[in-house]
């Protein structure tokens, strides 16, 4: 498989704090890769670097063979990367359908076409019955789903998911996992996901990257990561205790 996303020796500091330090990993086309690590490890910062919200101090990020450095977030979205926000950011005064339509308008010029595309995404994420509600009135699990729906509506090649299972009940997690697996199988959507819910990570990912204090401490298939002593010491052990 060819690599759709290549993160190559990327670093970023905030006033002396090295949030991401010489991190490198790849995401193969059609794959599902997990990005895990304790709180403050630099996972969300990685997403912001890929999505163009932040600029790396050094290193390169390539998507489908093309460097993303210097592109604006909207240009990166247009290039085919969709992202969700860990702290959800719906358009609260707009309806659920309008929220998703804004995403779909990236690929559709006509509003009617975008609405049709939005409705298809909404039914896929089981939000169709809430399409006319104001996004601001949704519960947290629904807002998380809306984040995914809006990003999906941009029809991305790569989807960046930042803790979309956090705060969901086990049955809801299973439903989300099923949706993502289905999307990946049927449309070939490539996914990079940040997740603390290890059950979901292990069920979904073919490959896992572990960050700690901004540094990459391990990478490999789920089984290897689960039994990796460094990972257990710095993250999984503490998760198991907590």
């Amino acid at each position, binding site marked *: 498989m060819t690599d759709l996303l290549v993160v190559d020796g990327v670093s970023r500091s905030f006033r002396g704090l090295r949030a991401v330090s010489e991190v490198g990993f790849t995401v193969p086309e059609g794959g599902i890769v997990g990005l895990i690590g304790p709180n403050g490890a630099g996972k969300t910062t990685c997403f912001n670097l890929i*999505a163009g919200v932040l600029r790396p101090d050094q290193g390169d990020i390539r998507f489908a063979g093309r460097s993303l450095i210097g592109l604006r977030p909207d240009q990166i*979205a247009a290039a085919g990367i969709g992202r969700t926000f860990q702290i959800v950011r719906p*358009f609260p005064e707009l309806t659920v359908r309008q929220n998703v339509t804004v995403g779909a308008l990236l690929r559709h010029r006509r509003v009617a076409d975008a609405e049709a595309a939005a409705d298809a995404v909404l039914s896929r994420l089981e939000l169709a019955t809430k399409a006319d509600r104001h996004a601001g009135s949704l519960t947290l699990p629904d807002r998380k789903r809306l984040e995914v729906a809006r990003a999906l509506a941009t029809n991305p090649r790569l989807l960046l998911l930042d803790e979309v299972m956090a705060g969901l009940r086990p049955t809801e997690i299973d439903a989300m996992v099923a949706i993502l697996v289905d999307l990946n199988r049927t449309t070939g959507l490539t996914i990079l996901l940040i997740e603390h819910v290890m059950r979901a990570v292990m069920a979904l990912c073919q490959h896992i990257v572990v960050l700690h204090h901004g540094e990459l401490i391990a990478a490999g298939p789920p089984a290897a990561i689960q039994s990796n002593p460094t990972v257990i010491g710095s993250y999984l052990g503490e998760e198991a205790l907590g």
Partner: protein
Amino acid sequence: MIAARAMGGALLLAGLAAPWLASEYVLSVLIVSLWFAYVGQAWNIMMGFAGQLSLGHAMYVGLGAYAAAGLFVFTGIGPWLGAPLAVIVAVIAGAGIGWLGFRFQVKGVYFALLTIAFAEFTRILFDHITVLGGSGGLFLPVGQRSGVDLINLRGGPVMFYYVIFVMTVAITALSWALLRTRLGYQWQAIREDAEAAEAVGVPVFRTKLLAVMLSAGLTALGGVFFAFYYNTLFPEQIFAKSRSIEMILAPIIGGMGTVLGPLVGALLLTPLGELTMAVIAGLGVTNAGVRQVVFGVLLILVLWFLPQGVWPWLTQRWAKGRRQ
């Protein structure tokens, strides 16, 4: 939706019939009301739709007024060319302010301060442009008020009434249509959360700039009307901070971001202001500040009890009434 349509239809009919029913005084109040509805709609595109606060919109009124009036005074060419000129001047000014503000990430209140600063700067500038009369004012030759010359916008109150009526209906229809376009969706997304909008591919800088330019150009047409209706322009009046504020009261009280809010707000506010003035004058008191106080109190009451504005509150009530 049905409430909006019924309301719209009733307003349209009443508006068309008004000059035949109203006295000259009432007609003049209606003209001012519709003028505030028109410029309120223009401002609403920038703030209500795209979420960019301007507190200096009097600048575009003034630029439009001076552009068209200057052309008319010096060459005799009427608004058929003056209006496009006014729009061009205002769009360039708006693009300049928008570019500065958005390029350097001046947001929210700071962007609003920038718009005030530019309006004030322009006022002082026009005080010193002697060819346009400076602080002494610019005066348009007044034709007979009985004839109707639409090309040169010379005529009586009934003509001016229908001109501003058509302008207001047109800008309301435009607002309605804009909200349903791709651009309208993208404006609203930026208003709600610019970073989230950018993440789904909305080119935020360009899209915000378009809102400012369109709003500025449309406001300038309000300025052209102002110039030819009043025939006198003073920088101290037309660029005044108080005008910038008065222009935004109707959309705020009526309901920002809605299509009919600015209209409803203006039709409530201006007649109320006039009524206050009449009552005050009847009491033999001369105090120009009373109207401002009344507007201020009304603004506080509306923001306190109906923070969304009068029009959204009305539609919600109607919807509730029908469900019961």
